[in-house]
């Protein structure tokens, strides 16, 4: 078998990449179970490595039972609140990247004027701006969304500006000889060429976006996945933290997968010959 080409797999694995990808995860799970079972056998009050049964029990109350204090299903309210913040943050960032990135990439005058400003903003660590955001926007939703935007938009803007700036000069000349105005060049050439790259940048920004979301929720919030994790940390409630972390991972993976599927569907030409 060849490691480089992936051809000539042993017959059991042939063509089954999903199965192959699940093997390391399964090994990790088994390892955890062994450690957890071992520790629980020694100490029945063990909290650091709860058994799956304890997790189900703890999560049951959050998922299926109304919280007595707030009257909400906490797990779902947390998920909804977090996804709303994340969605707003990602949406605003994407729109900003599209508009500013395209202008920076395609129009030299715009780049000369604003390029340095964008770079200067991009090098500031976003978390250092969090106090400012809290002071300016208060402790509500706006500050959390703003942190995500401040965190990922500069990267996306710069990535898109670089990409559109590097589009072959020949194509721009060709479009002009075909009668395209600057507006038409933007609309019919730069924009569609930039879209797959924008989705790519968005996918790469998902990780940082989650980091900023959880950070903002941890510091000042009363609902949200990050808030819950940091809240129950006080009680060493690993039986809640671990399922929440797994849930966040699943959500992140689903969003990433959906974006990839969207890009493949809308822009098949950008994904090589395999369409």
């Amino acid at each position, binding site marked *: 078998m060849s490691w480089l080409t992936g051809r000539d797999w042993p017959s059991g694995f042939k063509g089954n990449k999903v199965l192959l990808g699940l093997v390391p995860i399964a090994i990790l799970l088994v390892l955890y179970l062994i450690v957890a079972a071992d520790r629980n056998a020694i100490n029945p009050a063990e909290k650091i490595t709860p058994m799956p049964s304890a997790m189900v029990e703890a999560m049951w109350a959050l998922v299926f039972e109304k919280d007595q204090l707030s009257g909400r299903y906490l797990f779902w309210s947390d998920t909804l609140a977090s996804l709303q913040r994340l969605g707003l943050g990602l949406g605003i960032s994407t729109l900003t990247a599209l508009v500013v990135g395209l202008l920076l990439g395609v129009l030299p005058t715009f780049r000369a004027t604003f390029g340095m400003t964008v770079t200067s903003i991009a090098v500031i660590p976003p978390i250092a701006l969090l106090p400012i955001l809290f002071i300016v926007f208060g402790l509500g939703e706006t500050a959390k969304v703003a942190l995500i935007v401040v965190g990922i938009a500069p990267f996306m803007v710069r990535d898109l500006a670089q990409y559109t700036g590097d589009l*072959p000069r*020949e*194509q721009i*000349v*060709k*479009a*002009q*000889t*075909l*009668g*395209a*105005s600057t*507006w*038409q060049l933007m*609309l*019919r*050439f730069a924009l*569609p*060429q930039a879209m797959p790259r924008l989705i790519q940048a968005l996918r790469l920004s998902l990780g940082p976006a989650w980091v900023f979301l959880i950070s903002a929720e941890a510091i000042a919030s009363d609902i949200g996945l990050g808030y819950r994790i940091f809240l129950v940390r006080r009680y060493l409630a690993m039986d809640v933290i671990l399922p929440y972390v797994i849930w966040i991972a699943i959500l992140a993976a689903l969003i990433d997968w959906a974006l990839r599927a969207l890009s493949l569907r809308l*822009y*098949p*030409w*950008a994904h*090589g*010959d395999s369409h």
Partner: protein
Amino acid sequence: MSAALSLKNVWVEYGDKIVLERINLDIDEGAFVSVVGPSGAGKSSLLKLVLGQAAPSRGSITLDGEKLKAECTPERGVVFQRYSVFSHLTVLGNTIFGLECEEAPLTGRLFGAKRRAAVEKATEMLQAVGLGDALDLYPAEMSGGMQQRLAIAQALIKRPRILLLDEPFGALDPGIRADMHTLITKLWREYSLTILMVTHDIQEAFSLGTRVLTLDKSRVDPHAPGRFGATVVYDLSLDRRLAKEAEIAAELVDETPSGEGEITNA
């Protein structure tokens, strides 16, 4: 015949470096002019001038008696060696792009009857270059030869006054290149094109052109390579063309250009 494109005492200088000097050139309507010359002799600079990508530092360029603007306008069609077609558009989309830009300034897209008319026109053009069966393919799915056919169709649909070819067949296999030679000769005759082609291939320059220009430096200062620019050192009109044309016409009869056998990933 009247001069379609005319360059009068044109110079191109970048600071102290002189790239082209004393270019005087009249290109007749319907001519097929090949430009050859060693690397760095200003072939591309000449093309950029005519294309409008660069302005001459001295002298004037006129097209049909009017001063040429230093902008890439639709009177000039161009086919580059690479990157000539838009990867995000299908063959048909690439070809109607020029019509859409002209007729829909705001949206850049045509709908309804206008679109149908554009599609019809484009399909006809694509059939002429042998891409009639490949309307819905994306450039990434086509061979280099097919992409160049598309680039030519895309440029010709705007009916440019002059077609500029920048080593259009340089990246193609010899067999495909021969097909393309037949195609461009056929189109040149059918559409009465005026063509300016820059090439490295001397044989190509002579077999296609009705006139061959050689650019080179006529004077060289070994201590200051930028002191003198290149100019037209040979300007050959090819009378042999008549005999050659008969030969090509004979070839055309039994050869129909098509994209067959060129599809790589369809």
